[in-house]
């Protein structure tokens, strides 16, 4: 691990943490940061490179970079963004840490908008959504103006705001949680920093994992309603041919969702340096102080994640079956209905327990423990759900066909 550069800003308010794992082709965000409408000493830019590459893409803007740290992980080790977040949090000098895309455009008031939001709202985690344009003629990045990005080819512009911001049905899937997340550094350290669990290795991860645990801590999640980032198309933006940890089918980590559901605040695997920062006040950081667990060098090796040409799918740690939580200990397997885990029902602990020496035996015992008439109900409910969903989709299809036909008649 080594610093290419170390920040000499005395007391910045904001630290922007930008990541690279030897893949970024453009860091044009740095150019937009040079045009901000506030004193340059009020923010610093921290670049964290996972491997050892000194990126040529940064060179044109290196005056804008305050700290530049190479983690020097071995090339055969898969990337883990959360480790980079932790390095950024540890290195940052600002009160507010901003984890954001390094290949996006921002307007002149971007940093000011973040500072104003934190000044007026204590205990928040702030997100800024992103307009995305799919036009391939804007690649390689050619400095389009903002109207071009929100105009033709923009996939999420709804009346001047992003579709995600307007959405109140399923924001978790429709907003871009990875675009820009801002939180106080002290809060990030208080929740143990980003989780370095192997479930977050590769593409299925993001600052939303921090957001969820900050919400569990009692912070309010705010999405800026007037400030946005602007992103143009580039190859590989959807994480093609990446290792994927456990996710919900729409690339949101189930481990992060479990943290949100269970109300967990601390990470499953805490970084040693972050723990020291949390427990000891006067930790001074140099290149040697940021600790990376030696176990990662083995556990995150690419060859351990591949089966032939394909990545091995990440398995979820959550074990659920028909509404039962399945636990494994030295005595064997134990299952209980999920509601028993709630404090209000703690007096019933053990009442509905089902045991088994092996997992198949437990599942068999569980199946037999459910009364026969309820076992009949499950396929009926599943069939009714299928029919109603199929019926709903057919109606939607007909509705759209009719609308198109009507448009054709009018034309």
């Amino acid at each position, binding site marked *: 691990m080594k610093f290419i550069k170390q920040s000499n800003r005395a007391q910045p308010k904001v630290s922007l943490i930008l990541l690279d794992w030897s893949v970024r082709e453009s860091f044009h965000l740095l150019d937009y940061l040079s045009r901000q409408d506030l004193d340059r000493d009020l923010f610093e830019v921290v670049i964290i490179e996972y491997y050892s590459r000194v990126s040529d893409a940064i060179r044109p803007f290196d005056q804008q970079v305050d700290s530049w740290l190479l983690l020097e992980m071995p090339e055969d080790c898969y990337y883990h963004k959360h480790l980079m977040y932790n390095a950024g949090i540890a290195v940052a000098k600002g009160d507010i840490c901003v984890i954001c895309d390094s290949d996006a455009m921002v307007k002149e008031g971007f940093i000011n908008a973040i500072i104003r939001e934190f000044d007026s709202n204590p205990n928040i985690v702030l997100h800024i959504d992103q307009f995305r344009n799919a036009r391939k003629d804007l690649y390689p990045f050619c400095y389009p103006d903002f109207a071009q990005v929100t105009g033709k080819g923009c996939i999420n512009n709804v009346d001047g705001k992003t579709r995600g911001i307007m959405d*109140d*049905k*399923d*924001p*978790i899937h429709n907003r871009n949680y990875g675009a820009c997340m801002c939180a106080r550094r002290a809060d990030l350290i208080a929740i143990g920093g980003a989780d370095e669990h192997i479930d977050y290795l590769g593409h299925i991860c993001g600052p939303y994992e921090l957001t*969820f645990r900050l*919400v*569990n801590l*009692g912070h*309010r*999640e705010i999405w800026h309603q007037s400030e946005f980032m602007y992103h143009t198309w580039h190859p590989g933006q959807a994480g093609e041919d990446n290792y994927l940890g456990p996710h919900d089918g729409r690339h949101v980590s189930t481990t992060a*969702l479990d943290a*949100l*559901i*269970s*109300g967990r605040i601390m990470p499953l695997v805490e970084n040693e340096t972050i723990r020291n920062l949390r427990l000891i006040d006067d930790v001074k950081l140099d290149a040697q102080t940021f600790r990376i667990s030696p176990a990662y060098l083995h556990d995150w090796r690419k060859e351990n994640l591949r089966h032939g040409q394909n990545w091995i799918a990440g398995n979820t740690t959550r074990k*659920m*079956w*028909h*509404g*039962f939580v399945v636990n494994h200990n030295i005595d064997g397997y134990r299952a209980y*209905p*999920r*509601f028993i885990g*709630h404090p*209000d*029902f703690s007096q*019933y602990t053990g009442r*509905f327990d089902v045991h088994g020496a092996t997992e198949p035996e437990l*599942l068999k015992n569980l*199946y037999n423990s*459910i009364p026969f*008439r*309820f076992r009949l*109900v*499950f*396929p009926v*409910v*599943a*069939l*009714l*759900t*299928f029919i*109603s*969903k*199929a019926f709903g*989709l*057919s109606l*939607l*299809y007909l509705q759209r066909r009719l609308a198109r036909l009507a448009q054709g008649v009018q034309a």
Partner: protein
Amino acid sequence: MYYWKRILRRWLQFRSEASGLVTGFQLLIVNLVYISQLRSSEENRLVVIVDSWREAVLLWLLWACKVLPRYNVWVIRRAGHLDSYVKTDFDGELLMIATSKVFTKHYQLLAELRRQQRLIIL
């Protein structure tokens, strides 16, 4: 073609749900069945939060078939729907049960509710 693919996917989902591979709506039913067996004094103050009218209708059908007791059901399809329930139904302390699906969809509001009321997330 796109819609037929989606219908096919729902069919596959049905098959996996029926064989217990996916914890869908049945997760809620199983837990409600066991809660009803406890014959808790809180039964009348129990509110089930779901995210579609389909699930609400299925719960009603299960009550009609005498499989489950009748519960207060809040259908929260959009963030604003929660406010209207909170304004009208908050008489005393409630015990609420929500599926993880509805919780993650509206976690900003429900996490706040979790701090104020007893909320079980399945």
